């Protein structure tokens, strides 16, 4: 018994609130951040009610007609695959909104010091309005059933995040904003080319109709074109170049959304659009993809070890984690793919904690360079614990949920590898050994930042205010609870994928 129109409301509530937030923000200034959390709380309640209803399988969909003569329907679907994606995105957006209130205040103060111009209220207003648009884009991408609608939300994610980097980023924000936009946009138009070709093969724009592509001579090209769009978003090796710049120079709350929430949507989309409907086509590429995934994983890990700037370090770590997710997808097995989606959730919460910690360090300590930090555990105990938990989550240490997700991924990889060729087996073994890289860079960084002697210039560092640490504590709580009780997630994922594959 679900609330009627709940899916449409999930999209409409933030969309309609965005202009309201803008106008309120021009009056209220920085306090409007609290107002902006309201739509996200409403959507979270809606999604939670759907989650309760879906327990044990099944799906819930709504469909509205858009332009039926042109083959466009506006359909919204939530099932076992997407429910946890929605929950993750929503919780992340909500908590980061709370986090941004303090962080952006600090950021604008910094800029006032720099330029001497007081920050107008419209800066806060447009930040939160764009933030809500971004949230709608991400939620919409996960919910759609129609390919053109999917492309609409996919690009809708792009424009607000570009505007946010362009206006509120660090460093050469304009150049980097354009770099981010162009890379992802070129990937997206190749995706569009694939979608349009598939329309001529199957005659419909529905995602379910993509199964009809299998068997046509263009199937391989179409699958590849669609996948390129998602790979650019996921920043696999070779097309990853934009990620360290964009995530490094975006304002930290936005990095916290870009990295965990958005790039993983590429993985979800790959599952929904390619793996499930066009499974035979995808399975033929399995070996190549697992090799590519391993390359991404190792490259990200090694580059992360070499970084001094904490945000670029986390960005490369994201590249490496996307490699894990890609590995899970490449295995094309039930456990592997569900592990990949589960790892999206893990990485979402874990990386969010880490970017949050990075933001705390930037605002409290005043520097982004790891070299200049040290021994901060005394002064910032909560932050240190959070950082450790974050790294444990993505590193796969029990009792965090990272352990379960990695277990699933490797389970899937090995099940395919044992049934396949020796190259696949080799890739699987090497990838397990390479997990040591993740743990390595995590612990080394924690040691450098939080332990060891406290340098002179950091003697007055204080702990971060509650509004910044509370969201991160919420994430850590999720991580541990799901780690101990992974049934919460797997109950939805596994049955769905068992059926679909």
């Amino acid at each position, binding site marked *: 018994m679900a609330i009627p129109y709940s899916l449409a409301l999930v999209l409409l509530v933030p969309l309609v609130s965005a202009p309201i937030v803008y106008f309120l923000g021009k009056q209220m200034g920085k306090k409007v951040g609290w107002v902006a959390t309201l739509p996200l709380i409403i959507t979270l309640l809606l999604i939670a009610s759907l989650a309760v209803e879906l327990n044990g399988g099944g799906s819930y969909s709504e469909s509205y007609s858009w332009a039926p003569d042109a083959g466009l329907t506006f359909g919204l679907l939530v099932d076992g695959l997407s429910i946890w994606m929605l929950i993750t995105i929503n919780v992340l957006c909500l908590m980061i909104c709370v986090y941004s209130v303090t962080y952006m205040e600090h950021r604008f103060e910094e800029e006032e010091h720099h330029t001497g111009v007081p920050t107008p209220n419209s800066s806060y207003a447009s930040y939160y309005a764009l933030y809500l648009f971004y949230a709608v884009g991400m939620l919409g991408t996960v919910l759609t059933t129609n390919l053109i609608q999917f492309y609409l*939300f996919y690009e809708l994610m792009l424009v607000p995040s570009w505007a946010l980097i362009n206006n509120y980023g660090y460093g050469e924000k304009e150049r980097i904003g354009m770099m981010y936009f162009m890379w992802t946009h070129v990937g997206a138009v190749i995706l569009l080319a694939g979608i349009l070709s598939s329309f*001529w093969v199957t005659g419909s724009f529905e995602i379910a109709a993509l199964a009809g592509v299998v068997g046509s001579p263009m199937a391989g090209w179409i699958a590849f074109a669609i996948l390129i769009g998602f790979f650019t978003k996921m920043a696999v090796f070779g097309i990853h170049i934009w990620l360290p710049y964009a995530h490094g120079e975006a304002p930290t709350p936005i990095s916290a959304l870009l990295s965990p929430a958005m790039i993983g949507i590429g993985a979800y989309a790959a599952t929904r659009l390619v793996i499930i409907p066009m499974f035979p086509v995808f399975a033929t590429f399995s070996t190549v993809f697992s090799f590519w995934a391993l390359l991404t994983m190792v490259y990200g890990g090694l580059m992360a070890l070499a970084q001094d700037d904490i945000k670029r370090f986390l960005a490369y770590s994201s590249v490496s984690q996307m490699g894990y997710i890609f590995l899970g997808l490449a295995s094309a097995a039930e456990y592997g793919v569900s592990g990949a989606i589960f790892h999206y959730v893990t990485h979402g919460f874990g990386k969010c904690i880490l970017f949050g910690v990075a933001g705390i360090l930037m605002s409290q300590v005043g520097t982004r360079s790891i070299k200049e930090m040290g021994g901060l555990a005394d002064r910032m105990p909560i932050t240190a614990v959070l950082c450790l938990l974050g790294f444990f989550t993505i590193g796969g240490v029990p009792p965090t949920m990272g352990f379960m997700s990695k277990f699933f991924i490797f389970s899937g990889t090995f099940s395919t590898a044992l049934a396949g060729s020796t190259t696949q087996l080799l890739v699987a073994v090497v990838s397990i050994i390479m997990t040591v890289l993740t743990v390595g860079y995590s612990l080394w960084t924690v040691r450098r930042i939080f332990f060891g002697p406290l340098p002179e210039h950091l003697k007055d560092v204080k702990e971060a205010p509650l509004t910044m640490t509370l969201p991160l504590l919420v994430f850590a709580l999720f991580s541990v609870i799901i780690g101990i009780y992974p049934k919460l997630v797997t109950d939805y994922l596994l049955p769905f994928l068992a059926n679909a594959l």
Partner: protein
Amino acid sequence: MVDIISQGINLPLPLLMLLLGGLTSLMVGLLSERIGVAKLREVWMIIVSAATLTSIYYLNQSVQKAGVLVISIWGQLPPLGGCFEIDTLSIFMSGSIAVLGFLVALYSISYMEKESRLTEFYTLMTFMMAGMTGVVMAGDMFTLFVFWELMGLSSYVLVAFLKSKWGPIEAGFKYLVMSATAGAFLILSMAIIYGMTGTLNFAAIADNLRGAAVSPWIIALFSTLVVGFGVKSAIVPLHTWLPDAHPEAPSPISALLSGIVIETGLYALARVLFLTFDPGMFKLPIAFLAVLTMTLANVMALLQTDIKRLLAYSSIAQVGYMLIGLAAGTTYGFMALFLHIFNHSMMKGMAFLASGSIVHETGTRDISSLRGIGKMMPVTSLSLFIALLGLGGVPGTNGFISKYHLFSAAFGSGLGWLGIMGVLNSALSMAYYIRIMQVLLGSPKEGFKANEAPILMLTVTMAMAAIIVILGIWPAPLINFATSASQSLVEGLSTYIGAVLG
């Protein structure tokens, strides 16, 4: 099912209104100067455009009833005499012309306030719209040519309107010479058609010439037609007049030129090519021209520093996308072409109007010196932002809807490589649109001040921005209209022929 109305001089109602409106506008202008009432001629212009819009609506009803409406001009029945043949496609195009003309007329009340010779301005604008309406309603080649030249003449003078500066005159002269040459090519093509069939009537040509085997004369005909219509539509390499003409013309005229004059050229090309040749024949040459136009224009646009010149090159690139729809040659392809014609008129028209407001307030066209304009002219910048998103093909705007239809048509008719080139060019074009957006969103330099534009200009730009977003979210009615327009062209060919030849 068709009546051939022939009683003396008989013109379709919208055309009659525009022509009479133009003539009387001259007199009203002189009157207003004599009696000193300031806004009389502007109000007359608004009345004329609104009346035209209403008459198109009524004409549409007669066309829907009759299928195809044939109006012969001089009492001589076609195929001997000239005629107008009006089907849904003509209604679609004349509707686009009238809508954009009305909005631009509203805008220029405020924009051209301080200029002199306004009587000539409004008269010429009315005649230009009359010419365009005549072109889209023409039923034979010579009627098309007469109104084509009317449209051209008015636009030459309008481009060179601000004659105290050198720029407009050079641009106007270059435009005139190139367009006149194209006119000569058109006469040559008419001669070839006449030599081959003995008539210039479209229906008779479609009956006789269509599907003929490719011979040197057919190739000569095709090339002269492409050159003749291509100069006005700004197909590369015949586009060189456009980057000079559009920036130098006054902003409302740039909006009209970019928004609908070059599209009328494309309409004429589409109509004549479709009626004279089998689509399979011109698929590859037009596809080749499409790629050339898109790529060259996008690359040149990246190098521009003047905002109106950048928008002019962007128009050329958009013409390239429209040529993709023409190359596809199917009902779907033509539907995409006409849909994009209307959407582009809204988007590019509004982009020129909004940048016209900006230039009006700040006095400069250089992009880098306009940095931070978003903070000072928020409403205009928001409208310009939406127009640029639409031109780049970002979903949520009507530009995306028509662009994806164009690329889809390319994939559907076997020209997959053309579709890929199209999407990549679309992505490339975002690069220079983002450059303008960055300038809009940036922070202003010291001492840079500008006021928001006058309320009338604001209303027009906001209304067009609203149209862009609404049509992007709810495109169904427009898509239906464009589909019926394209069906009347492609599938209604036999009705078209039958209407005249019986």
